[in-house]
């Protein structure tokens, strides 16, 4: 009983760590642009497919695959930024969002054109037996995922709070007009934020496919939905909130799945989001989102 609880908590944290990364990517983009990038997940999927394609055709080591995933996601992210967000800066938020959805369709079709099977194997992060510690089993890949996600979070924290670029990003999130008046080159920061967010998403995507050992075109929708959900739960536009939202989502999912099954897991996550939004809990609605 207690063992289940602990085990679920561990599983939940490692899943939550990737959700946190996805939510951070979303939040960075939403924070500076005030627009949701629906193509965030599909861009990650594109990176993962690029890596899978390399793996299937040439074979490549884990590190190289991670590198290809991240660069693929950044490349796809740059394409989305140029076509969907740069033209609508200061313009219509809905148009930007719908445009990003249109590119989502492109990524999905591109993935199935290049690799037409529904499912491909991806090299596993770790193939040995799980580690047994008394009554608990620790999946090594889950630990590695948690560790990598935490490392990525720390690297992001350092970038945002200890570098000049990070200062500009935070200034832009807080007061876009004042950031421009302080001499920050806003369009250029947008481009770099997009690249940074896509890279973080690429790391998350790589961790997910490498721990599941497989990839399908559904990854795009999955990553967009989980990222949006975690971002909203943590309060729209707050970076620490994104981490908390991601971890909370992971924990809730792990426990509800164990006790109630996968359908109830998703139902409860969405119900929670709906109820919190409807109740207008303070941390969710303090920042306006238009």
């Amino acid at each position, binding site marked *: 009983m207690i063992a289940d609880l602990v085990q679920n908590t561990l599983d939940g944290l490692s899943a939550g760590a990737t959700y946190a990364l996805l939510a951070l990517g979303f939040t960075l983009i939403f924070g500076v642009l005030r627009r949701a990038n629906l193509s965030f997940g599909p861009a990650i999927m594109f990176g993962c497919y690029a890596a899978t394609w390399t793996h299937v055709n040439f074979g490549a080591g884990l590190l190289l695959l991670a590198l290809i995933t991240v660069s693929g996601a950044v490349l796809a992210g740059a394409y989305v930024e140029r076509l969907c967000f740069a033209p609508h800066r200061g313009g219509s938020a809905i148009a930007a969002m719908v445009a990003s*959805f249109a590119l989502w369709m492109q990524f999905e079709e591109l993935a199935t054109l290049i690799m037409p099977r529904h499912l491909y194997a991806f090299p596993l992060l770790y193939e040995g037996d799980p580690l047994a510690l008394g009554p608990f089993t620790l999946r090594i890949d889950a630990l590695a995922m948690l560790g990598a996600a935490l490392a990525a979070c720390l690297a992001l924290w350092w970038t945002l709070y200890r570098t000049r670029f990070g200062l500009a990003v935070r200034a832009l999130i807080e007061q876009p007009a004042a950031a421009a008046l302080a001499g920050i080159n806003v369009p250029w920061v947008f481009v770099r934020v997009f690249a940074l967010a896509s890279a973080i998403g690429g790391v998350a995507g790589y961790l997910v496919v490498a721990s599941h050992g497989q990839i399908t075109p559904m990854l795009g929708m999955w990553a967009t939905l989980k990222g949006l959900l975690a971002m909203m739960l943590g309060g729209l536009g707050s970076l620490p909130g994104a981490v908390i939202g991601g971890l909370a989502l992971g924990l809730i999912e792990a426990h509800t799945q164990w006790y109630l099954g996968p*359908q109830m897991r998703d139902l409860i996550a969405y119900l929670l989001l709906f109820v919190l*939004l409807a109740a207008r809990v303070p941390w*969710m609605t303090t920042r306006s989102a238009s």
Partner: protein
Amino acid sequence: MDDYAIGVLTNIALFSFIALSAYLLLIAGEMSFGQQAFFGVGAYAGGILTTLYAWPLPLAALAAMALGAVAQFLVALPTLRLRGLHFAMATLAAAEMARILFELMHWRREIDGELAGPDGTQGFRGIRWIFEHGIEPLHYLGIVGVLLALVLALFLMIERSKLGATLRGVGLDPELAASVGIDVQRIKLGVAAAAGALAALGGVLYAHHNTYIEPRNFDIMLGVHSLAYALIGGLGTAFGPLLGVLLDIGTLESTRVFHGYRMIVFGGLVALVLVYRPRGLLDERTVQWLRQRFS
């Protein structure tokens, strides 16, 4: 007309209902990611009524519309004060909940020696009312087309009336609208109920056209597509959403030039159109220009 053409035209008409429901919300200033839920509610409710309870389709359609209106009204009631992405995410959460509830729904009875009714993820087979009543595909297209024309006529009438101006006023600037004495909450609740009924009508007609539905038919893809159709077609007139559907299904799908590349072409086209026309092809300015030109 060959079967394929009839099928494509029926699909265009069916999509138009849900695109119009997204359009209605957009002109009232709300972006919904969740219209697929009410389309699904209509499809399931209508299918259950005709298949399990032997209701005639027209009556089942009316009941499904009422249910769709009530469903979206109930979703809107606690979420209408949310704006922008908050509202969109609340509708998405509601829609995903609805989809999961469809997955959990097992409601099967023996009809004519066969088990019929929703069977969770296995879907809902045998919604055969139009076959049992000998309605040919061409006739069904006629029925769907007439209903769509009626809905469009209603839209055009409302858009020329004071109510239409009020709707656009609420959409463009709710604070200003409230300050001149418009009950913004009531208008938006009314719009939500109407959008729910409209999507549900599309759903009923879809279920009976296809004879088979399953929960996956009603995922976020359908909702965001309808939003995209409404937006690229244009927010200036109710013909906008139709143009959006026509552009995708009508030209790209049926002309097989882009076989296998359709979404790449369409996706790029949508993104490019929105760069130059953020409120769609038939936006307010174009519609005004057209009216002056031809009246």
